[in-house]
C-alpha cells in the first residue's frame, strides 16, 4: 500500500459525499468521485466504485435524492443532490467530527509530550 495514500473509513466517505453535494450542488457519481479526489489533492485514492455504496446508503436515509438528467456533454446521467434532512445531518456530523478530531489531536499532543 502506497505510504502517502490513506485508507478511508466508511462513515467518513459518506460525510465527504454530503459535503461535496452541499458545496457543489447536484452532481453525478463520477463528478462526486472526481471532486473528492481533487479536494484531497489526490491524497485519498479511492476505487471510484465505492462511491456508489455510499450513495445508496445516503439515498436510503433520504439525506440525498437522485434523479436522471443530462450532463454537460449531453449524456444521460443520474444526478444526486443533498436534501434538507441531509444538510441537517451534515451539520451535526461535521460538528461531531471537529469535536472528535480536536480531542484526538489533544490526546496525541499529550502522548508526545509524555
Amino acid at each position, binding site marked *: 500500500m502506497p505510504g502517502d495514500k490513506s485508507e478511508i473509513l466508511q462513515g467518513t466517505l459518506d460525510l465527504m459525499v454530503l459535503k461535496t453535494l452541499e458545496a457543489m450542488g447536484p452532481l*453525478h*457519481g*463520477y463528478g462526486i*468521485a*472526481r471532486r473528492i479526489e481533487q479536494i484531497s489533492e489526490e491524497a485519498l485514492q479511492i*476505487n*471510484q*466504485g*465505492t462511491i*456508489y*455504496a455510499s450513495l*445508496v*446508503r445516503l*439515498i*436510503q*436515509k*433520504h*439525506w440525498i435524492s437522485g434523479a436522471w438528467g443530462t*450532463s454537460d*456533454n449531453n*449524456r*444521460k*446521467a*443520474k444526478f444526486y443532490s443533498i436534501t434538507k*434532512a441531509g444538510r441537517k*445531518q451534515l451539520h451535526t456530523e461535521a460538528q461531531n467530527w471537529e469535536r472528535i478530531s480536536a480531542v484526538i489531536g489533544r490526546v496525541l499532543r499529550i502522548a508526545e509530550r509524555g
Partner: protein
Amino acid sequence: MLAWIRALASRTRAWLSPRHADQDFENELEIHLEMLTDENARRGMAPEEAKRAARMRLGGLTQLRETNRELQGLPLIETFLQDARYALRMLGKSPGFTAVAVLTLALGIGANTAIFSVVYAVVLKPLPYVNSEQLFNVFEVQPQQGVTGTGWSYLNFRELREQNSVFSEMAGVQKHQLTLTARGEPSIVNTSVVTPELFSLFGQKPLAGRMFFSGDGKPGAPPVVVLGENLWRGSFGADPTIIGSSINLDKRAFTVIGIMPATFRFPFLTKSEQLWIPLVQDPVFGSWMDRRGGHWLQVTGRLKPGVSMTEAQAELDTISARLAKAFPAENDGWAIRMVPLQQMIVEDVKSPLLVLLGAVGLVLLIACANIANLLLTRATSRAREIAVRTTLGAGRARIVRQLLVESAVLGLLGGAIGIGLAYWGVAGLSWLLPPSLPQLSAIRVDNFVLGFALLLSVLASCAFGLAPALFAANSNLQASLREGGGRSGESAGRRRARSFLAAGEIALAMVLLMAAGLLLRSFSRLMSVSPGFNVQHMVKADISLPRFQYSAPQQWAAFSDELLARIQAQPGLEDSAVAVPVPIADGFINLGFDIAGNPPVFAGASRTANYVSVSPDYFRVMGIPLVAGRFFNQHDISSAPRVSVISEAMVRLYFPNGDALGKRLTFGFPPDPGAVREIIGIVGDVRDVALGQDPGPMMYVPFQQAPFWGGGVIVKSTLSPSSVVTAIRQEVRKMDKDLPVTDVQTMPDIMETSLAQPRFRTLLLGVFAAMALVLAATGIFGVISYSVSCRTNEIGIRVALGASSGAILGMVLRETLLLALAGLALGVPSALVASRVVGHMLFGISAKDPLTLAAVAVTLAAVAALAGYIPARRAMRVDPMVALRYE
C-alpha cells in the same frame, strides 16, 4: 431512528422490484466508465488503454454489483427464506420426525385455539353494545339480612333515574314468558318486559320500524311489541309487512312496531327467540308498578363519560339515604351498589372457562417438551452435519439461527394445521357448550383468535427450539467430526436436559390427570346422588294460563283441579300431580317465614325456606316419603284451615326439639302473604336447587290453598313419554284450545340437562388429561428408546459377559422408573397446589383427595413403565456380536 426506518422502507421497495434497481445501477456504472474513459483519453491515452485504466479506477464490477445488491436488499429476510427452504428440505428428509412433531403441535395449538375462541367470545371480548364499558348493573342490597343483590321496585327505579346525575341513561328489565298466538300453534316466547329507555340505553338501532318511545311506557298507552330478528324469521317467516300488524300475547293484541337485529341480546343472553314489551303492558309486573316494596326490576345504567365509579357510588349512597328517609317502611336498611355489566354477565362462567384454558395450555407445554426432546435427539445425530458447517465457516450465531428457523418452520406448520383443527373443534364445541352459557358474541375463529394462534405457534417454536439449538451450537467440533456416526456422542448436559424434560412432562401430566380425576369422581358422585324423589318413568309438562283471560286465583285453582281430574281419568295416567315449582327443572322460590309464638326474626338473621305449591298426590307420585304427620288431601281446600308440610331439613334447622307438628307458620305470596299455616306433616328431603347442592329447608302448601297461574304437570307412567304428552295435550285442548303445553321433558332428561355444565368441563378436562398422558408416555418412550440405542454397544458387552436378559430388562426399566419417580416427585406437590383451582367445582370430594392422587400417581408410573418396556424388550434382544461389530 427515523433514518433507519426510511432506509428499511427503501430497501423493502427495492427488494420488491429488484430488476428495476439493478438495471438502474448498471446504467449508472456504464456512464461512469464512459466518463472515466473520456477523461483518460483527454490525457492522451490510446482508446484501449483508456478503457482499461477506467475499469481499474472504478474497481471490480462484480464486487460492486454484489455490494449494491446487498445494500439494496433485505439480507435478514433473504437469509431467513434461505434458512426456511433449507429447513423444509431437512424436515422432508425425516418425514417420521416431522409428522410426529407437526401433528403433536397441531393438536396442542388447535385445542388451545378452540378453547381460546370460546374464552375470547364469552369472557374477554367487550360486550357487543356501544361503549359497553360505560354500562353498569345497579342493584339494591340489604346487608343486615344478607341480601346481596336484588332488583328494584318500579317506583324506586323512577326516583333513581330522575334524581341521579351520574348516569346518562338508565333502564329496567324483567324476564317473562308469554303465550304467543299469531299464526299456527300457540307457543311460549321469551319476553323481555322493559322500561322504554332500554334500546336507547344500549345505543341499539332497530333492523326495521322503531323502538319504544317514552309514551309507550305510560299507563293507558296502546300495547306495542318489538320482535327479535330470530323470532321474526322463525315464527313469522321474515314477513316484511309485519310492522303495524297485530299479534296476540297472552290473548291480548299487541301492535308490532319494530324488529331488533339478532345480534342484540338483552336481557336474554342466549340465542333464543325473544321479544320486548313495555313494562306497563305486562299482565303480572304491569300491576306491580305502583307498589314501592318489592325487588324485581333489574336495572342497567350508562355512566356519563368521565364519571368514576367512586363518584357514582357516592351519589348512589346519597340517593339510597334519601329513599330510606322518605319511605322508611320499604327502604330502611337498603343500600345501592353497582357492578360493571360485563362482570355481572360473565362472573359465573369465567373461572371454569379459564381453568379449561389453563389445562389446554399445559397440554401444549407438554407437547413442546416432547418436541424439544425429539429435537435434542436429532441434534445429536446431526452433530456431524453441524460440525461440517462450522468448519466451513458458519458462526455459532448462524447455526443457532438456522436451527431456530427450523423450529419456527415446524411451529408454523403445526400452527397452520392446528388452526384448521380449531375451526373443526369450534364447530364441535358449539354443541358441547351448556345452553345456559351467555353467548353475546358468536364463538368463532376470528382475526383476534387467529392472531392468538399465530403468536402461540411462534412462542411454542421458541419454547421447544431454543434449548436444542443452543446445545447443538455448543457441540464439540473435533469430537463430532471424529466420531463419524455421532452415535454415542451425547453430552452429559444434553442427556440431563432430555431427562429433565421427560420428568417435567410427567409432572405436568400429573397436574392435569389430578384435576380431571377429581372432576370425574365428583361428576360420578353427582350422577349417582339421589335427588330425594322418583326420576324414572316421570314426565313433566308446563302449562301457563293467560292472565288476561284467567285473572282470578280461583280460576287457577279450578283449572288445575279439573285438568288433574281429566288426566287422572285416563288409563295409565292415574299417578299425576301438579307442582310449582318442579324441583331441579324450574329453579326455586325462596321465601322468608315466621313461626307463630316465636319472637319475630331479629335483624341480621332470617328464616327462609324454599316454597312449593303442590296437589295432594304430589308426594306419592314423586316418591317423597312421609316422616311424620300426614300428606295433604282433597279436604285441604281454600275454605279449610291453611296447612303446610315441611321437610326434615327444615325440622333440623328450625325445630331442633322435634316439636314441629302443630306449630303454625306465617308465610306466603301475594295475594295472601300473611297467611298462617299449621304444620301437619314432615316429609323427606329433596335436592330441589341442583343435584350438587345439599337439600335445604322446604315448606309445601296445597295448590288449592295457594294457587298459581301456571305450573308443571307431573306424571308417573310406564307409558311412553310421547303418549303421555299427547294425552295431556288432548285434555288441555278440550278445556281451552288456545292453551299451549310447553317444556315437555322426562325427569331423567331434566337431570341430564342440569348436569350440562359439569359434564362439559369434565369431558373437556378428561380429553386434555388423556392427551397429556399420551404425550408424556411418548416422551418417556423417546428418551428411553434413545438411551437404549446409544447404549447398544454397552449392552452387547454386558450380554457377552453373561448378563441375563432379565438383568438387561431390569436395567432399562430402572432407568424408566427413575425418570417416572423424578416426575412424580415434582408432580405431586404441583398437582396438590393446582387442584385447589378446581376445588370449587367439586361435589362430595376434597381437592386433596388422597385416593385420586394415589390412583393418578400409579397410573402415571404404570404408563411410564409401559412406555419404557418397549425399548427395554429391544435391549433384551441385542445380539452381542452385532452390537460389538457396530462400531
